[in-house]
């Protein structure tokens, strides 16, 4: 049987398929529906210092082969997480990645420092698609120097794997990937949701209370795949591919373009067993193709064209 596990620093993941932040709760909601230990890891809902109520309804709108959300990072806050959720997560046989959201660099540091001392938190994923109150609510994630700064400060605070989750809503995502690599990140997650919106024709109101929201699901897979490819060509640290992954074939596409692992997001809402099924599918595929390690698929796409010319003459 082909090797499935992979490592970030000295932290081992059972396999290369994780549940994406905000699409798998805190891992306990579906424990009766799926054996979460069959996942490579669980990325928690984004955690902020204080609990967040989130945005007013309506928070969800369906779109062709996808969905929009404006949850507003509703979460129980890092203290409640430690008290109520971590005891359950700690005893799981899968890797726990705490995802952190914040409205100031200081808040990122505070949440991470507190979690860093907690047994059961194996790694960190930093969600920079958050409004910077200092900058009047403009997203940290679209400011390369800000993302570099956040990475550098957090790097100084932890020896656990530090994963920066990048937003696709920028011109050259590879610049951001290089910046966080230089600042000491162990990996990058690509991508978070794309900005989108939908209007209710009958009421003539935006479907989401926040007007725009984040687009996810199969519809964005081709965009995510191109972003992952661009980043994988630009940096040496591992890339975790995210965006519309719903089937084994989807996951294979991401590995082939250079993702070392993948996260499944919106598909969890339709089928919470998709992650483990894809993980086992990858192992079976590797065996069938005579590979001793699923990792041999990473970057195995057969192409000699590098990224620079790719924007040409669409």
């Amino acid at each position, binding site marked *: 049987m082909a090797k499935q596990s992979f490592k970030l620093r000295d932290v081992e993941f059972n396999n290369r398929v994780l549940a994406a932040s905000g699409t798998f*709760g805190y891992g306990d909601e579906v424990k009766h*529906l799926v054996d979460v230990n069959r996942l490579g890891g669980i990325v928690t809902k984004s955690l902020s210092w204080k609990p967040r109520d*989130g945005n*007013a309804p309506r928070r969800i709108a369906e779109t062709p082969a996808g969905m929009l959300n404006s*949850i507003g990072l509703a979460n129980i806050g890092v203290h409640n997480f430690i008290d109520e959720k971590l005891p359950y997560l700690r005893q799981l046989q899968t890797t726990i990645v705490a995802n952190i959201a914040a409205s100031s660099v200081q808040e990122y540091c505070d949440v991470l420092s507190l979690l860093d001392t907690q047994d059961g938190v194996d790694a960190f994923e930093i969600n920079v698609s958050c409004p910077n109150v200092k900058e009047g609510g403009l997203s940290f994630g679209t400011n390369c120097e800000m993302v570099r700064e956040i990475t550098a400060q957090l790097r100084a605070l932890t020896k656990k794997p530090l994963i920066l989750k990048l937003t696709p809503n920028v011109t050259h995502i590879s610049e951001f990937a290089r910046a966080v690599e230089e600042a000491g990140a162990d990996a990058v997650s690509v991508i978070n949701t794309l900005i989108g919106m939908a209007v209710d024709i009958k009421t003539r109101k935006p479907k989401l209370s926040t007007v725009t929201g984040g687009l996810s699901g199969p519809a964005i897979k081709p965009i995510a795949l191109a972003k992952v490819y661009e980043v994988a060509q630009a940096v040496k640290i591992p890339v975790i591919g995210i965006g519309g992954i719903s089937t084994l074939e989807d996951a294979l596409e991401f590995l082939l373009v250079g993702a070392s692992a993948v996260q499944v997001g919106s598909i969890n809402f339709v089928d919470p067993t998709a992650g483990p099924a894809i993980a086992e599918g990858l192992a079976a595929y590797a065996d069938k193709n005579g590979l001793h390690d699923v990792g041999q698929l990473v970057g195995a796409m057969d192409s000699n064209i590098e990224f620079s010319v790719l924007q040409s003459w669409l």
Partner: protein
Amino acid sequence: MAAQHIVSVSSQEEVADGLFLLRFRSKQIAQTSLPGQFVNIRTSDGFAPFLRRPFSISRVDGELVEILFNIVGAGTRLLAEKRSGDTLDVLGPLGVSFGYRGDFDTALIVAGGLGVAPFPLLSSWLQREEKQVVSFIGARSAYQLYRLHLRNPQYATDDGSTGAKGTVVELLARYLDNHRVTKPRIFGCGPTRMLQALSDFAQKNNMECELSLEGDMACGIGLCQGCPVERVSGHNGQKKYALVCTEGPAFQCRDIILS
């Protein structure tokens, strides 16, 4: 307990113009469903539509589970095309049930339009609990009313084509003027505007009232945080929102703010 079931459709009927009754076989769902709970159904094995569709568990008959629906868009259109023998991917039973037990004698069921869906199941449970039941059923017009397994049905239609003319809440109010009801509890389901009126009525007359809500849902199982309903502040801890899918769909009307 909630689980993912691949079930087989046993029948599909258009019981009234545009109103469909789908039966599927699932011993587990049939035996574990409580009144007010729902199932989340995958209407396509592709991505059109992408998300599941939630439907109240309308009635249980042996190992058969019934849902009642009308065609709204792509998902319900596909569901209406299912035929006996087709398989269906069903997640359920989900959500919190109505308070069918407890300290009340008479259940006043108030349904608007498709809001009737959860009440046949509720009625059968109320029967076991030996509660009195009066059912108030409102619809846009007669053709939408189909004789359900409801006890003491009273009908109201916007156009008066069947039963009383006017809203179902007015019908309820008139009924209570003319009848002596001991220890009542209201159970409501229907369009938000109707639930709002019912909630106001119940609180004005401080009557116990439970409402079953329909909000947009992505997952139905507490993963996405996509289905909030605002709580009456202070109430039940300081959280501003409750999740319709896991903390509902049935709520005490005094606990929530309909928007």
